[in-house]
């Protein structure tokens, strides 16, 4: 069989790509598909495959959702809380930082690195450092508050503040990624638009409202979808910042993914845990489709 040079190149490309494909198929897709099967079974983590129970696991989740003190109810409520706190904060802060970074010339690389660094830091390391910062009485924040004569705050130790405290860390950690994407988007906007608008007498906020913001729409949609998904899947920070990794105090910080983990590996009910992941999958799918449908706008210039 004689192949042309181009065909051989393409073949090689596929050969290399297939390595990643094999990885994805075995490590990600196969277990993900398997979880759909597990969700229909009474599956004890220790015992492995159990009998087919149809929709029993889903029915159990549905029941738990309406019990006032159930873990799953708290997990869904909190997860919505994380999205509502986290996504808008992240979108606004990242845009502000990106606009500022776009202005400066001196040391701009240093600043970009500084904002991006948390994103490439392990969530566990981030959680530990923030645990120390939040520490009552001896933590840095407590000491700063003392200096400023502001009452010390309990942060993650109080059911009222814990969720917001962890959401803030999540925003801080992933801000850098959004900033970089925003920056790229801002650079894409042709300078001529601004020049033309200035000649017409527009300035400041109006330039931002009528040029920057509309032209950033695709970037905003992309980032909203992505950051919503990342907040819906919050796990490592909560596991490492709540007491004994239980999503406390008083279930105030637990998330759906944390409950998946706890049901599967602490309560050994893998069937229930798998059903919960399937539910989360469809929730994410639904929210993403809705966001793409309603946030995407077309502008004519």
């Amino acid at each position: 069989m004689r192949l042309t040079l181009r065909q051989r190149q393409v073949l090689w490309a596929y050969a290399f790509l297939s390595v990643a494909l094999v990885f994805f198929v075995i490590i990600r897709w196969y277990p993900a598909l398997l979880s759909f099967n597990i969700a229909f079974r009474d599956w004890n983590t220790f015992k492995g495959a159990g009998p087919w129970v149809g929709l029993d696991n889903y029915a159990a989740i549905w029941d738990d959702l309406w019990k006032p003190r159930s873990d799953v109810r708290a997990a869904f409520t909190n997860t919505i809380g994380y999205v509502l706190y986290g996504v808008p904060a992240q979108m606004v802060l990242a845009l502000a930082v990106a606009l500022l970074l776009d202005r400066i010339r001196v040391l701009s690389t240093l600043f970009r690195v500084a904002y991006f660094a948390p994103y490439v830091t392990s969530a566990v390391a981030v959680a530990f450092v923030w645990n120390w910062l939040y520490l009552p009485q001896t933590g840095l924040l407590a000491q700063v508050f003392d200096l400023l004569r502001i009452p010390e705050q309990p942060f993650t130790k109080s059911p009222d503040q814990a969720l917001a405290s962890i959401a803030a860390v999540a925003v801080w950690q992933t801000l850098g990624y959004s900033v970089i994407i925003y920056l790229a988007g801002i650079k894409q906007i042709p300078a001529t638009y601004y020049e033309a608008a200035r000649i017409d007498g527009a300035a400041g906020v109006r330039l931002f409202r009528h040029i920057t913001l509309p032209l950033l729409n695709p970037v905003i949609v992309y980032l909203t979808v992505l950051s919503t998904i990342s907040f819906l899947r919050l796990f490592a920070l909560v596991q490492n910042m709540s007491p004994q990794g239980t999503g406390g105090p008083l279930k105030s910080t637990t998330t759906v993914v944390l409950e998946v983990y706890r049901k599967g590996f602490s309560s050994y009910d893998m069937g229930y845990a798998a059903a919960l992941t399937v539910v989360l999958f469809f929730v994410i799918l639904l929210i993403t489709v809705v966001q793409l449908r309603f946030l995407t706008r077309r502008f004519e210039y």
Partner: protein
Amino acid sequence: MKTPRLMWILGCLTVALLGLVACVAPGMPDAAEPMAEAEPEMVEIEYWQYNFEARVLAMDRLIEMFEAENPNIKVVHNSDVPYAEYRDKIAASVPAGVGPDVATLFYGWQTVWLDADYLVPLPEDAFPTAMIDDEFSPLVQASFVDGTLYTIPTAVRALAMFYNKDLMANAGLDPESPPTTLDELASQAAACTVRADNGDYEVQGFVVDLAAQDHHWFREVLVRQFGGEPFSADGQSVTWNSEAGQQAWDYLLKFKTELETGDRDLFDGSTQAFLAGRACFHIDGSFRLGTIANNAPDLNFGVVELPSHNGVQSTFGSYWTHGITQKGASDPARLDAAVKFLQFVTSDEAGSIWVDMVGELPARLNAGSDPELLADPKLGAFAAGLAYAQATFFVNESDQRQALIDAYDMVVLGGEDPNAALDIAAETVQDILDAHYSQ
């Protein structure tokens, strides 16, 4: 068009991939390949315990001795997993077909592990019931289920009260007369507490930390001392929210809500606070002696029996125990090696080494009643406690503990009525018990 050929190649690749996927179906891998019979066969068994420095060092020593006696058995010691993840890692190891042949578990987890068929019964000929009854601490009876023994411990422990002599002296208390009653504990803890002008704790008198040992103290000690029983006689009903339970609960809460003698969120919990010389009194098990010896050797402390109340003396007795897993029992040679290993680590000799290195008292009465041990100024309080120690039969230790932690948080963080919070916890635990006994 050249595409069809490319498509064909891609198609082949996909089929090959799917084939590969089909191969990785889950299942237990085969046991180690049988080796030639002629040579003395080497058997390797894997032993797991969670990471607790003193226990790891002691077990290393025991394994070394065991291997010297049994040159054909090799014990792989995995002690890298931290306490918080130990059970999760064990659970994850099972579907993967790996994990321990012999595992050490808290006796309170045994029910959950048996419900999952994870442990196999210990062979009667190696561990006769009569021998356990005669030679082991009565606490070990909790390892029998319907007359079948599933696990066996090296050591047992009881709770006692640690006190920091220097901090007591600084507060003008006599370091040689630590509290002997609950009332004295309350007054001395209050006297020993030192707070800065801004309210920060410099020295905590006594820190209630239900995530540590204090949930046991509540159930098996305080409730009894206030005249109640933690569970009904058949163990199937929660009774620690009775009137006596409520009084015990109020006493426990008082340290935080009225006396303000400490806060478990400071200094990384009550245990660390005591180790760091930031707490005067602390309730803990004898295993903490090993921790202190390794991590805070200069701490000037003493140990006394838990304070009494209404003339009632009680303590919580418990143990970490060893069991053989399904994986360990899946091959006769390994099962045999595992049984020999268990016999060795539960011998008199092992118990004596264990108490020296870890501070937990030998589960064998013979080694545990050593007069030298009973006269030891630190271990004596624990040894004395074993005589009246009570062990809780747990269906699910971690969930039962969490229910009490949540009840405490409801009151302290959420402003809930103490009795209402206790009732909610009792209801949660009753559901756990009902689910187990209805199976």
